[in-house]
C-alpha cells in the first residue's frame, strides 16, 4: 500500500534527525557519519520517488548524483568560493542532464529502461574519468573546500563546525523531502501512483504517461543531484566513483532494504547500509564481497524491506 507517512511516524523521524548530533556519539558514531546518512537517505528517497511511487526502475541515478558532486567541486575550485552557488550549479547540472537523457528514454519500459539508464549513467563517469585536466581524472577533484556561509547578520561556519554543517544538510533534506511528500499528495503525485499501479488504465484515463514519467524522472534526478552536491561538500572532494554504476546500485539497495513502498523506507535503508559499510570497510579488505553478499541476502530474504515487513506484521 502507499500511505503517506502518518503524522506520528513523521514526528518521531524529525525529532530523531533534529537531535542526532547530540546522541550520535553516545552510540559510537560521529556527526559526519550522521551527515552521510542524511545525504545518502536524500538520494535514496529521491530515487524512490521514481522507483517506489512511479514504478519506474532506474539503475543510473548515480550519474545525476555525481553531476551534483562535480558541479559543486568545479564551482568552488574554479569559479567562485560560494557554497550556495556551488549547490545551485550542481543541482542545475544534474537536472538539465536528466531532462535531456529523460527525453530520450521515457518511451522505454521495464528492464529496457533499467538497462538504458545504466548505460547512459556511464557517459558522465567516463567524462569525469577521462577529462583529467579539469576533473582530476581517476584521482578525483581535490584542492577545494566548502566555504562558510555569510547570512548578513551572522556567519554559518559549516567548515569548522561539523554540527553546523549537519544542520545545513538537514535543512536541505527537510526542504526536499517535504516537497516530495507534498507532490505525492497532490493530483500530479496521484497520477504517478496511477501509472505505477496500472499503466494501461492510467493511459485510458487520459494521462499522457510518457510526459508524467518524464516529469517524475526529472524531479527525482533534481533531488538526487541536490544530494550529490551536499555529498561533495561533506567530503570536500569529488570522486569519479560517485557517478559510477555501483553507486546507483547502492541507492537502489537502500530503497529496497528500507521498503520501497513506504515514504521513510529509504531513510532506514540508507542508515543501515551506511553504518554497515562504514563498519565492514574498517574491518576487512574484502568489504566488496560482504556488500555483494548483503545485496543477495536482501533480495532473497527481505525483498519488501524493513518497513514492508513491519507493516505486514501490523496488518495481520
Amino acid at each position, binding site marked *: 500500500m502507499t500511505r503517506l507517512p502518518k503524522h506520528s511516524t513523521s514526528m518521531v523521524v524529525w525529532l530523531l534527525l533534529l537531535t542526532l548530533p547530540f546522541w550520535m556519539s553516545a552510540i559510537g558514531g560521529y556527526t559526519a557519519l550522521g551527515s552521510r546518512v542524511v545525504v545518502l537517505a536524500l538520494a535514496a528517497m529521491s530515487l524512490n520517488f521514481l522507483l517506489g511511487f512511479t514504478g519506474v526502475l532506474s539503475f543510473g541515478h548515480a550519474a545525476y548524483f555525481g553531476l551534483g558532486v562535480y558541479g559543486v567541486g568545479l564551482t568552488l575550485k574554479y569559479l567562485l568560493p560560494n557554497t550556495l552557488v556551488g549547490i545551485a550549479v550542481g543541482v542545475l547540472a544534474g537536472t538539465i542532464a536528466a531532462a535531456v537523457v529523460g527525453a530520450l528514454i521515457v518511451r522505454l519500459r521495464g*528492464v529496457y529502461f533499467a538497462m538504458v539508464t545504466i*548505460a547512459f549513467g556511464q*557517459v558522465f563517469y567516463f567524462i569525469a574519468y577521462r577529462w583529467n585536466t579539469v576533473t582530476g581524472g581517476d584521482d578525483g577533484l581535490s584542492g577545494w573546500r566548502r566555504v562558510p556561509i555569510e547570512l548578513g547578520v551572522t556567519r554559518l561556519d559549516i567548515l569548522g563546525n561539523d554540527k553546523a554543517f549537519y544542520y545545513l544538510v538537514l535543512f536541505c533534506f527537510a526542504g526536499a523531502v517535504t516537497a516530495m511528500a507534498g507532490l505525492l499528495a497532490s493530483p500530479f503525485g496521484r497520477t504517478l501512483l496511477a501509472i505505477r499501479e496500472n499503466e494501461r488504465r492510467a493511459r485510458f484515463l487520459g494521462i499522457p504517461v510518457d510526459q508524467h514519467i518524464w516529469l517524475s524522472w526529472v524531479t527525482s534526478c533534481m533531488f538526487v543531484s541536490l544530494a550529490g552536491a551536499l555529498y561533495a561538500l561533506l567530503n570536500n572532494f569529488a570522486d569519479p566513483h560517485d557517478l559510477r554504476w555501483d553507486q546507483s546500485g547502492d541507492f537502489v539497495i537502500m530503497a529496497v532494504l528500507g521498503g520501497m513502498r513506504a515514504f521513510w523506507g529509504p531513510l532506514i535503508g540508507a542508515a543501515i547500509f551506511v553504518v554497515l559499510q562504514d563498519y565492514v570497510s574498517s574491518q576487512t579488505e574484502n568489504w566488496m564481497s560482504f*556488500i555483494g553478499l548483503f545485496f543477495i541476502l536482501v533480495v532473497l530474504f527481505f525483498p519488501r524491506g524493513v518497513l514492508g515487513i513491519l507493516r505486514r506484521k501490523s496488518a495481520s
Partner: protein
Amino acid sequence: MTQLILYNLFNGLIIGAFYALMALGLSLILNLSGVINFAHGGFLAIGGYLAYTLMPHIGFWGALALAPVLTAALGLMVERILIRRLYGRDPLYSLLLTFGLAFMFEDGTRYLWGPATVPFAIPDWLSTPLSSDFFFLTGYRMFMVVLAFVAVLALFLLLNRTRLGIRIRAGTLDLETVSVLGVNVRILRNLNFGLGIYLAGLAGVLAAGMLGLQPTIGSALIMPSFVAIIIGGLGSLPGTLMGGLLIGAASGVVTVFFPSASEAVIYVMMGLVLLVRPRGLLGEEGRF
C-alpha cells in the same frame, strides 16, 4: 595515416567481437528469462583466470577448451541456486542479485589471483606478425577473429538447427505455449543460462590474451555490451552481434582522432539510435 586508421579499425573490430560475444550471452539470458545479468563480466573474468590457472598444466589449447566449460558449469550452478528463485518477479530483484554477484566475483578474483595484471602467455607462433607491411596482423589477432566468427556461427547453428536451440527461440517468443507443449521450462532456462555464460567464459579467455588479465576486466567490458544490445535492438541476436561490431569499430576509429572520446562515442551512438529508433536497429516493435 591510412595504416593507422586500418590498424585501429581492425583493433576495434576485435574488441567489438568481444563485446558481441559477451552481449550475445547477455541477450540469450535476457530474452528467455527477463534477467539482466550484471554478473556477466564477472563470469568473463573467471573464464580468463581459470584459463590462466589451467594453462601450465594442460597448455593453451586445453585451457581454451576447458575454461569456458568450467565457467558455464559455474553459471548453471548459480542459476539453479540463486537466479531461478527470481523468475517472474520484478526485474529489480534479479538486477540487484546479479549486481551483488558481480561485486563478489570481482572481489573474489582479486582475492584469489591478486589485484595486478597477470601475464597470459599465448603460443609463440600466434604472436608473430603475419606481414611486415601490416604489423598489426599478428596471428593471435587473426586467430581471435576466426574463433569469434566460428563461435557466433556455431551459436546461430545451434539456435536454428538443434532441438535445444529451437526450443530456446520458441521460448523467447512465447514461454507459456512452449511450456504447455511439454517443454521443461526450468531446464530450458538453466541450459540457456549456461550457454550464455559459456560465451562469457570464451570471451574471457580470448580477452585475457589480448587485453591482459585483471580483476576489473569484467566490469570494463560489460557496459559496452549493454550498449551493443541497446543499439542492436532488444530481442534480436543478429542485432546484438551487429551492435557489438559497430561500437567496437566506431570506438577504434575515434581512438585515432580523439583518443579520450573512445569510450564516450559509443554512448553518443546509443543516444542517436534511441532518438531515431527507440527499439534499436533490428529490434522488434512492441516487445519492450
